[in-house]
């Protein structure tokens, strides 16, 4: 039986775009209609061609000039470019999954608000640090609504941060903080992002600190384990490695994310976590569309 798949377009052929492509090619609900960037000599385009994927170096024009090439568009460029792409794609009626910190669409973390997001036309995948920590912080808030402050420290390997990430580092930091407050409902949050150039590269590592009066570690552990299990369904390399442990009112949890090794090696869990969330959203949208 031939399964019907929904066509996706990927704009941006860097680390994020290339990793997304690998995941799309593996999906049972998606197929890649167009993989498009700006630079004809980009390594990403060369690799995609080898995989037999239709490519273009005219960026979004490849989609506007060929509207049937896709129903879903992943934007893996940068915040500034997405500001230009968003209104064009809206007019075309495409379902847009934005991987830049542009903040145009509704922020989406699958375990938190997937269903609501499917009714939107443009959704934003927050940041890698946000995708890792927001589910756990939300679990903490459900156990301890009196949590006063939450801080996350995300360390990623320098090699896994492409130029788009680097040019938008401030927007990444700000978006992560704001998303923790908006989606996980923390009253006050802080995000710290560290690019670590160590060689061999470090695995993506995240520390969550929460200030809670009289924390109940047993209840917290249960809630965190349940949540981690849900995230693991779409990010297999997601592991709570430390905690929750408490030092007076400071509760610490550490999470490591090993990537699936689709594009960059396993250390780049940051690519994996945001892209796995994006694919989950795309597949949910595709399934809904295929049912209609």
């Amino acid at each position, binding site marked *: 039986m031939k399964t019907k798949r929904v066509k996706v377009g990927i704009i941006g052929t860097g680390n994020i775009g290339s990793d997304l492509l690998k995941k799309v090619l593996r999906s049972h609900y998606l197929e890649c209609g167009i993989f498009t960037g700006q630079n004809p000599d980009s390594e990403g385009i060369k690799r995609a061609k080898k995989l037999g994927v239709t490519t273009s170096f005219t960026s979004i024009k490849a989609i506007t000039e060929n509207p049937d090439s896709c129903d879903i568009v992943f934007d893996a460029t940068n915040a500034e470019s997405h500001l230009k792409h968003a209104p064009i794609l809206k007019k075309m009626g495409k379902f847009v999954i934005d991987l830049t910190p542009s903040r145009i669409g509704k922020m989406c973390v699958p375990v938190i608000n997937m269903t609501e997001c499917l009714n939107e036309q443009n959704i934003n995948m927050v940041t890698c640090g946000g995708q890792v920590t927001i589910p756990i912080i939300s679990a903490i808030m459900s156990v301890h609504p009196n949590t006063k402050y939450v*801080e996350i*420290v995300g*360390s990623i390997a*320098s090699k896994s941060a492409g*130029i788009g990430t*680097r*040019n*938008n*580092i*401030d*927007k990444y*930091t*700000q978006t992560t*903080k704001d998303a923790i407050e908006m989606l996980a409902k923390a009253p006050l949050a*802080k995000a*710290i*992002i*560290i*690019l*670590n*150039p*160590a*060689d061999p590269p*470090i695995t993506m*590592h995240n*520390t969550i*600190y929460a*200030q809670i009066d009289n924390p109940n570690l047993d209840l917290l552990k249960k809630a965190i384990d349940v949540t981690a299990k849900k995230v693991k369904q779409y990010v297999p390399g997601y592991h709570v490695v430390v905690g929750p442990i408490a030092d007076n009112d*400071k509760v610490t949890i550490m999470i490591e994310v090993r990537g699936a090794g689709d594009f960059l090696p396993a250390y780049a869990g940051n690519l994996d976590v945001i892209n796995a969330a994006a694919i989950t959203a795309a597949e949910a949208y595709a399934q809904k569309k295929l049912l209609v």
Partner: protein
Amino acid sequence: MENNLLIVDSTLRDGSHALGHQLSAEIITTYARGAEEARLPLIIVGHGNGLGASSLQLGISLLPDKEMLLTAKKQLKKTKLGAFMIPGFGTIKNDLQPAIKIGIEVLMVASHCTEANITKEHIMYATSTGIETYGVLMMSHMISAEELLQQALYMQSYGAKGVLLMDSAGAYLPEDVTKKVSTLVKGLKIAVGFHAHNNLGMAIANSVAAVKAGATIIDTTSRGLGAGAGNCQLEVFVAVMEKMGIKTELNLYKLMDNSEYIATIMKKPQEISSIGLTSGLAGVFSGFAPHALKHAKTFNLDPRDILMELGRRKVIAGQEDIIIDVAVYLKNKNDIKETTDEIEALL
């Protein structure tokens, strides 16, 4: 020599490390007033790791950034107020914009020496609002002069007025300073600066070498107040400049008075401990010292061996988890050696 040397006073920023980030309004007020009287051109104020860095991870500062800056600003007329910032810690919206509103005139944007392109948004934003902005390359002993120049060129292209090499681990010798500073002086169109640490007792010598190699910005602290072994001691450096015939507009006696005040608020004298010295020798981040001490106790090791091994592995800040790995490695190595010794004794 012409008088174009900018001596930066970071006592109320880097010195904050030595006080566990507990700078009080009284200390800031007293010191800032003294800085104005000493005719210092620029003081940098805030948490040791800069704007937005007050955190559970790095230590919560006694006063919020805003209050520290406002308190200092009240005492300043001619002396400029500056802030320090590491992208990924503070953000433009939450931290830099409020600081600009308070009236900072100078900003230093720092990154690890290989990551200069993460400073683009911050340097460009600050420059666009008319702030005099400098780039800082931290842990700069870890890469070559040519690699440093390449990173500094990024900062120049974003609009930085100058680039400072930070010897975060206190690992430079004067020859290294000469080579790296002169490479930058030759390759850049903007000013070059140096920020020394004193782990090998070289902070003054290295700052002098930087000036001789063409650096025009020297970052210092009063009494050498700073993390670990401390910084280039401001009043000593100025005295050395005078002796070398390099005129500064500074009031040396007043700088000494300020230093005597700092001595009264220090938790302990700024000295080079064996751990500080080993950090400099190994070229590792001074923040590793407490971890090395802790794991050395657990595994019955010499903390200096841990620091030296961390240096050999080129471990950097943020890799604190590797310290356990190193401790286990050293422990196993020692056990094997003991067994071999026993066998030899039997033979």
